[in-house]
């Protein structure tokens, strides 16, 4: 009898909780939303919250093209290349995006930034006095680093561009498994790179890290590229 008495509260719990649980689940299931819903929120504003650019293409809206300045893609220096001054890395200036922290100096890099939630993503700038192999070779190398086959040369002409030092510069975004120089492979990585080939040298901007971080910093990367500028000589 003692056992029966002790069991009673638990029987009560089961008797009440089980129907309550079933009812709650049923209500949750019945709260199905129709496919047509009214827009209930409205307010008066001075205008749209972002600048409006009627006629802007998706490429412009997503930052794949400089807004309102669509540029033809050029993969090689244009006419008059020989007349341009040499690219002086010491005179390059840029705006640091919010949240980017300066990283340690590395060989062959003008600057390195650490970014992302855990600082595992880095973005750096390299400046060369020549083309450093050119667009096709470097983009192909990046693809292979990410475990992918290099795209055909014709596909490079379709790459989006960002203006670096006034030069339309192709941008690539590659997601895959990154293999570093030691041969270690890390899946779930992404690489975003921009190649600025200009008379007198070339500039490479490369961002590499976990795909989520790279995707989240994409806009910052493009803004960073676009902010690169050469200070005038005194």
């Amino acid at each position, binding site marked *: 009898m003692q056992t029966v008495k002790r069991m009673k*509260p*638990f029987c*009560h*719990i089961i008797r*009440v909780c089980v129907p309550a649980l079933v009812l*709650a*689940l049923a209500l*949750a299931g019945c709260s199905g*939303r129709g*496919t*047509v*819903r*009214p*827009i209930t*929120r*409205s*307010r*008066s*504003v001075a*205008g*749209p*919250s*972002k*600048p*409006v*650019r*009627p*006629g*802007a*293409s*998706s*490429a*412009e*809206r*997503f*930052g794949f093209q400089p*807004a309102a300045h669509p540029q033809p893609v050029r993969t090689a220096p244009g006419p008059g290349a020989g007349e341009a001054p040499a690219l002086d890395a010491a005179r390059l200036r840029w*705006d*640091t995006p*919010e*949240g*980017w*922290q*300066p990283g340690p100096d590395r060989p062959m890099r003008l600057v390195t930034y650490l970014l992302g*939630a855990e600082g595992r993503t880095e973005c750096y700038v390299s400046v060369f006095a020549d083309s450093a192999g050119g667009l096709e070779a470097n983009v192909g190398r990046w693809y292979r680093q990410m475990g*992918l086959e290099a*795209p055909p040369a014709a*596909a490079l002409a*379709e790459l*989006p561009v960002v203006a670096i030092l006034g030069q339309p510069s192709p941008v690539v*975004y590659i997601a895959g498994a990154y293999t570093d120089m030691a041969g270690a492979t890390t899946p*779930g990585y992404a690489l975003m790179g921009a190649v600025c080939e200009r008379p007198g040298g070339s500039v490479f901007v490369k961002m590499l890290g*976990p*795909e*989520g*971080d790279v*995707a*989240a910093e*994409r*806009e910052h990367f493009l803004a960073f590229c676009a902010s690169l500028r050469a200070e005038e000589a005194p």
Partner: protein
Amino acid sequence: MKRPARKLFDLCASTGVACVLFLLLFVLTFLGTVEQVQSGLYDVQQRYFHSLFVVHWAGGVVPLPLPGAYLLMTLLLVNLICGGIVRMRKDWARAGVLVTHVGIALLLVGGFVRARSAVEGHMTLYEGERADEFESYYEWEMAIAEVKAGGECTEYAIPGAEFAGTASGGSMTFVREELPFDLTVSGYARNAVPRPASGPMGGGARTVDGFYLEPLVAVKQAEQNIPGVYVTVRDHKTGGSHEAILWGMQRCPAVIESGGRRWAVDLRKVRRQLPFTIALDKFTRELHPRTSIPKVFMSEVTKIEDGASEQARISMNEPFRYRGYTFYQASWGPPNAQPGQPLYSTLAVVRNPAENAPLYASVVIVFGLGLHFGVRLWRHLRTEHLPGRPAGGAR
């Protein structure tokens, strides 16, 4: 045979139920804390603690259905009221416990009010700038506003939660009488990036204007997820439709023409209006010598309302409170600003109708415990001095 109502009340007031609830809360807190490593703070808060039910995947493979903290706390409140207040014997010996229970109930109610009604976000201002709205950290919305040459217009907003369900397929159509079109949303992705369809991975995806939306794995830091969605706008009059991809970091809204007017459709963080304006007059940042450790950072602001202004200072641990809103000094930037470069100040904005509930509840609980132990002490002392009891308190 007890009546069912009486049996239900007894169950609600049961100490056994309280023990089960505390045990479940312990389990939920433990599992939520463990899960936080994988899913991040915000997701765990939403799934485990702001929910009625949660399915915890033990070891990532075994589903373990559990009541959410929201449900458990509700049941705990009911249990506390029934067992700890209503059913409790009302006499001086238990007055302190009763008051303490009232304090705990107040704490729980404050928690519910906060969970249901509190909003928070941030506003970022450079010196000389002002704002009468703030932006959410985590919530997204779709905003539709008419593009006019000047003057005010009405902006319509669809909370992200209303179309987030399209992530698993299907679509959702939104209508409003004042709009000359209806808007169908589909293919929502909580974290996504638009990619050119001509790229190496563009095959097979739904393409709009040469782009497709590639869903990414959501990151733990919820505020870093950038959503994307497909929208189709169908004109009521002509029946024509216009498709677009909206992305959380797009530079400018998609512009559509309908009813002879232009409309901007944007996907952005939720913006909430303040009933007054905050202007940043001056931002001060001082670092400890030869370090980047902040010594002082403080915003001097002006609150403007109906033409009247009031100045205030906001610094670490010294927020500015007005009309239910609290402004905290949260951060500043740019992080690598050079000397002389203009700085911006970011203020965290919180509106919590139950902001003071923990304080009041704590006062009540302290009073209740003080009363309880005071009564116990008094009773003890009185017993000790009863006639006939030997001196020295020996029993």
